[in-house]
């Protein structure tokens, strides 16, 4: 209706509301000052790639943003004595560091304002990317930029606190202590424990690491104490993927070359939008797609990744292995359009251990017995191997996969997948990590089967655009600063084996059975059972140290954690090295506040592309102050002193804390043999310093050392100085086909993996593999191919192991090759490979598989929950996604509160329920609900009083609602009682002027982790995160966020999974665990010895 008449618009004159009442009024008038012509500043930067050159990092001047955005320098000019109204110029020291908000370790730069130095105030005005970090390339995700809001979180714990004398754990009564008071108490307890010197005491100090974000320092801590005390969170995170990867390659994760792939083949949203190294991976994936690469995502949920993929395949969760083996079937049994085989025979023949399978007639006979193949081939050549595979995988037809993966109506998608998979050739990149591999019983087979089609196509060669293995790209030297210490050598291996972390039911788990710790430690029957057989298992842990970890909240069966942690007869002394308040803190004896991204000193290495790189996270206020001339009184405590002096508070970090604790409190007189590993070689009277230790550690990189010593000729610690000033170093690029690298061999020796072996001690077997003695064991070091001595893969066969021969010896022979049940009979028999949420367990319309393992990309860890910036973009209440038609059938509408009841499918026992908000959507497949287990934070108080301190300390007052809890030893409940009330910003006031603008109620879903029982996979040991659930509409008296858990039932379920599904060690077994596979901290060979009697 162009144009309306002027007459029509004149009606506007009669509006009942005048313009002046409506207008926002964003203009002010302002007289213009004269511009300063000789300024270096321009109105608009010429480029958005605005990283100052490194040469200016010690003093970089930038116009203040608040003035800048009002019109550039033409508005008021640049501030000077002659022009006091001009735009302020900030003078920054730019200190590189590394983000610590997920595992990716992206580079950051902290922009520290220099102006406050003379007044003893140093402030980080912003965190930006570090362009020198060749992985993140100057880019960060929301979590990276939110580091400032974590650093200046008004609820940061400002000093060490201790459970008030006379109070019980969980009462929430705290007193302030100094770091030295805390260290004195902790050191005394550790000293007393270690002084006993018996086997039990070597299992009574446990260091439980959440997100390590460093490469080796943590393991050095328990190792130097001579204890078997390292515990990781791997079994709730990535154990399934690691197990499958180890069986293929004896490396615990793969390493894709995203940027050069022609097909990005994802299972879950990991890598592209939320998971490991995602910010770095996502950039590389985007570049590949810009170049024309296709992207396929297997995920029951339409994640961000699935949404932008060329193909979304919503397989029923836990059945993906069937699809992978279907691909293998087609690759083996079909030809290309020009009639050629689709198998990359050159690669498979050369680098897959077919020869080991074909020469193992006993196993081939077993395969016949299992019904895998019809007969043992007459010959043992490669061609017969391929014929075996053709027969083995022929049953994985399209029809089978459609039925098994519940892809009815989506058959065409399988054709589309094939049409993308085959043209990509060997340039298929994947990263099989969380999701399917961790969520299920048998999840590890997801990884095992997933790599098979890639191997057959040659994509596992580690070549351009394909898939290699993680540790070839990872540099772990953080535990190797030995030369800076009095000992001058690495701590030895302990002779103890800690059954609380490595129980005999799970000899090949990957790795520590940490989610079962609170169960095992209170399980007297389990203790008695193994004690009778001859094991020495402690009944308590003397000192338990979670580090950057919140096991109470993130592990399954949280009430069991609470019950166990409250027992002082089981956990005698506990302290949490935690940068923020957490649910676990509430039940500890001490909370020791440690640093975040710009407040720590860690060497990290994150393989996100085919290169070897390290990054150096550092305490930026300390570095900035030292660069401006400040000197600490005690150099081994420089970080703590800097944080106290320049306004951050009594915040410390591990690379100074542990050396000081060991030297001054655990072993002050050296009688335990611990002190020398942490005392400074330069000044043995004190602990080693950060520059001393990390210079020694990072000097182990030859190219870095060479460059740094040239650049910092006059410095005492040149390598440290290089990393201090640059933050990242790329030691090697184009790490392709590393298994094909030749070993150095001279007249006398073979050199492999940093060792040299006299030729007389090297033996060659029938497959060309070179073996040497390794104490009581043999280890392979390389393989001869066409007269060349190559390193090979890290398996015993030095090849990728289609046939995992050692698995046959470790009680799981039927699963020693990639396999998946092909029908109901096998499904019953192969229970270990069938997900607890398989569709066969879903009988009624209201029974569903609950998909829990996906991350919300902006808020994934305990330490970021009180970041106001991340919380603001996280407020979706983590609803429960339900397929539209499923919701219709049950009469569930958007926003309805639904009761989600968890039921175990092995025992039929119900755990309890949580109440969630339903969102019907087409973005989850029929029959499968989705609700991330990364949300649902809680607290029991909004703040605590510290006697003698003027201010109450806020507790997650921006990030979590307040809940009321009941628990009686059998049943636990939690219900939200109040929303967000920002606590008084008595610290970091300037940064928190906007606290009155917080609009969210903080409720981020229910604490579903507590409802879930621990479901330990019998092979990998991972907790199976997905659950079978029964949903109904919530009752009138139930609110979103409520949980109700029968954790006595959960205990029974966990016990049933352990008792019914595992194949424990017995008197015939002489070794605790295959010696060749990884243990994060390996004890001595003596500790591996296993001698028990059957009772």
């Amino acid at each position, binding site marked *: 209706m162009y144009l309306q008449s002027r007459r029509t618009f004149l009606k506007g004159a009669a509006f009942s509301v005048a*313009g002046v009442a409506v207008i926002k009024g964003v203009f002010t008038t302002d007289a213009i000052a004269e511009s300063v012509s000789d300024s270096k500043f321009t109105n608009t930067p010429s480029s958005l790639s605005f990283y100052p050159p490194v040469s200016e990092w010690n003093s970089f001047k930038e116009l203040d943003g608040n003035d800048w955005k009002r019109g550039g320098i033409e508005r008021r000019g640049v501030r000077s004595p002659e022009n006091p109204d001009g735009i302020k110029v900030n003078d920054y020291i730019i200190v590189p560091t590394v983000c610590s908000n997920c595992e990716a370790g992206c580079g950051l730069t902290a922009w520290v304002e220099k102006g406050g130095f003379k007044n003893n105030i140093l402030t980080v005005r912003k965190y930006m990317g570090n362009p020198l970090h060749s992985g993140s390339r100057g880019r960060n995700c929301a979590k990276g930029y939110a580091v400032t809001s974590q650093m200046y979180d008004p609820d940061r714990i400002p000093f060490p606190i201790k459970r008030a004398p006379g109070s019980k754990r969980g009462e929430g009564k705290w007193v302030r202590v100094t770091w030295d008071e805390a260290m004195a108490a902790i050191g005394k307890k550790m000293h007393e424990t270690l002084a006993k010197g018996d086997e039990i005491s070597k299992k009574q100090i446990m260091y439980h690491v959440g997100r390590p974000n460093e490469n080796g320092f943590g393991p050095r801590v328990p190792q130097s104490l001579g204890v078997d005390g390292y515990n990781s969170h791997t079994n709730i995170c990535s154990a399934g993927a690691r197990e499958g990867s180890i069986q293929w390659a004896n490396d615990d994760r793969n390493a894709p070359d995203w940027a050069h792939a022609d097909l990005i083949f994802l299972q879950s949203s990991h890598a592209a939008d939320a998971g490991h190294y995602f910010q770095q991976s996502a950039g590389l994936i985007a570049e590949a797609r810009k170049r024309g690469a296709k992207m396929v995502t297997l995920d029951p949920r339409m994640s961000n990744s699935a949404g932008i993929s060329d193909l979304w395949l919503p397989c029923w969760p836990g059945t993906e292995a069937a699809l992978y083996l279907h691909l293998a079937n087609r690759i083996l049994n079909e030809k290309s359009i020009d009639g050629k085989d689709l198998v990359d025979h050159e690669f498979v023949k050369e680098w897959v251990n077919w020869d080991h399978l074909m020469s193992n007639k006993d196993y081939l006979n077993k395969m016949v017995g299992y019904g895998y193949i019809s007969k043992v081939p007459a010959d043992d050549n490669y061609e017969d191997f391929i014929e075996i595979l053709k027969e083995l995988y022929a049953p994985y037809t399209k029809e089978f996969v459609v039925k098994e993966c519940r892809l009815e109506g989506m058959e065409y998608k399988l054709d589309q997948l094939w049409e993308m998979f085959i043209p990509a050739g060997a340039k298929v990149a994947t990263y099989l990590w969380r999701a399917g591999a961790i969520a299920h019983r048998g999840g590890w087979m997801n990884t095992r089967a997933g790599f098979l089609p890639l191997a057959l196509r040659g994509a596992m060669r580690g070549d351009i655009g394909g898939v290699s293995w993680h540790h070839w790209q990872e540099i772990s030297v953080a535990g190797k600063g030995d030369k800076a210490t009095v000992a001058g050598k690495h701590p030895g291996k302990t002779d103890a084996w800690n059954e609380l972390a490595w129980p005999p039911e799970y000899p090949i788990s990957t790795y520590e059975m940490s989610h079962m710790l609170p169960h095992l430690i209170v399980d007297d029957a389990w203790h008695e059972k193994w004690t009778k057989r001859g094991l020495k298992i402690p009944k308590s842990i003397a000192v338990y140290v979670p580090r950057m970890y919140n096991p109470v909240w993130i592990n399954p069966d949280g009430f069991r954690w609470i019950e166990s942690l409250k027992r002082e007869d089981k956990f005698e002394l506990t302290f949490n090295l935690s940068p923020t308040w957490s649910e676990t803190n509430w039940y500890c004896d001490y909370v020791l506040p440690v640093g975040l991204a710009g407040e720590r000193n860690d060497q990290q290495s994150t393989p996100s592309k085919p290169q070897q790189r390290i990054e150096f996270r550092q305490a930026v206020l300390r570095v900035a102050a030292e660069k401006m001339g400040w000197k600490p009184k005690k150099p081994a405590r420089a970080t703590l002193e800097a944080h106290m002096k320049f306004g951050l508070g009594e915040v410390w970090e591990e690379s100074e804390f542990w050396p000081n604790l060991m030297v001054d409190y655990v072993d002050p007189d050296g009688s335990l043999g611990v002190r020398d590993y942490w005392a400074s070689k330069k000044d043995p009277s004190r602990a080693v310093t950060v520059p001393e230790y990390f210079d020694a550690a990072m000097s182990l990189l030859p190219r870095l050392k060479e460059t740094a010593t040239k650049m910092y000729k006059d410095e005492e610690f040149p390598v440290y100085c290089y990393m201090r000033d640059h933050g990242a170093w790329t030691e090697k690029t184009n790490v392709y086909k590393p298994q094909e690298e030749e070993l150095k061999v001279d007249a006398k020796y073979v050199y492999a993996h940093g060792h040299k072996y006299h030729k007389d001690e090297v033996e060659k077997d029938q497959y060309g593999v070179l073996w040497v003695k390794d104490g009581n064991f043999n280890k392979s070091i390389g393989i001869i191919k066409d007269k060349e001595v190559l390193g090979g893969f890290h398996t015993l066969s030095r090849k990728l192991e289609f046939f995992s021969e050692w698995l046959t010896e470790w009680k799981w022979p039927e699963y020693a090759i990639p396999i998946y049940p092909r029908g109901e009979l096998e499904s019953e028999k192969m229970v270990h490979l069938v997900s607890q949420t398989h569709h066969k367990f879903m009988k009624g319309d209201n029974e569903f598989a609950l998909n829990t393992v996906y991350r919300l990309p902006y808020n994934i860890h305990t330490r970021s929950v009180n970041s106001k910036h991340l919380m603001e973009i996280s407020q979706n209440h983590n609803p429960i996604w339900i397929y539209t038609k499923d919701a219709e059938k049950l009469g569930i509408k958007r926003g309805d509160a639904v009761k989600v009841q968890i039921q175990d499918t092995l025992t039929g026992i119900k755990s309890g329920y949580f109440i969630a908000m339903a969102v019907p959507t087409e973005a989850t497949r029929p029959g499968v609900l989705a609700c991330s287990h990364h949300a649902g934070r809680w607290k029991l108080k909004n703040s605590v009083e510290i006697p003698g301190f003027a201010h109450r300390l806020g507790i997650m007052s921006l990030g979590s609602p307040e809940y009321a809890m009941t628990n009686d030893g059998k049943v636990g409940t939690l219900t939200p009682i109040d929303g967000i009330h920002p606590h008084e910003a008595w610290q970091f006031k300037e940064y928190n002027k906007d606290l009155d603008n917080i609009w969210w109620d903080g409720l981020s879903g229910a604490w579903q982790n507590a409802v879930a029982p621990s479901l330990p996979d019998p092979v990998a040991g991972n907790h199976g995160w997905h659950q079978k659930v029964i949903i109904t509409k919530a009752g009138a008296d139930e609110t979103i966020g409520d949980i109700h858990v029968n954790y006595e039932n959960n205990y029974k379920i966990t016990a049933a999974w352990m008792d019914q599904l595992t194949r424990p060690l017995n008197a015939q077994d002489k070794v605790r665990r295959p010696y060749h596979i990884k243990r994060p901290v390996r004890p001595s060979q003596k500790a591996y010895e296993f001698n028990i009697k059957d009772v």
Partner: protein
Amino acid sequence: MNNDLKQEQTARINFYALLSRVMMSEIDEGLLKSIEEDENMLSFFPTYKIWEKKEKMSRTDLIEKYLNVDFTNLFLLHLIPYESFYVRDDQMMETGGDNPVQQIYTALDFQVELDKARVMSADHIAVELEFMYMLCDSENKALENEDFKAAAEIAKIQYGFMREHIMQWAPMYLLNVKSEAGTAFYYDVADLGLEFILNDFEYLTELKNNGYNYEV
């Protein structure tokens, strides 16, 4: 100033104010109530007037569940309401002092409180419309004071600003808003904005062609 001119000026002021306001930030209940209860105003929102959801939902729900969502889509997330995005070949937003619109404000001693406006740069559609509001208001005051020379000078600025800036991109942007709008309200806002801007430019062109002689 005769009644016709007065009516003309008041109408222009009111339209620029209204359009600037609804494109700058989310609608509030008070303003929505005013629109709904004023037949005159509501007549400029014909689709919204008969929108089913308006009848069925409370204003609070309507705003929180529909209008704010649509506003976010149209003005914050998916469409880019900035002149520089539309007129630059590289489609980059110019947020610095080199922004030509910013330079006009600067030259006229105007400063935009970007944080109050909650925008990234001074060439946001709502800021440009508020600038026109201010010019119209000043012109009106000059006319009330019978300072026709000053009024004409301000009208010249209005014409130049419309021709060189608003007309260069706002119609395209508003057509996109019309096409993307998910609610009757913002569909009407876009339609009204488009019609009014084109109409007002015709008016200013006519005024210019008359040598800025106001018929007083």
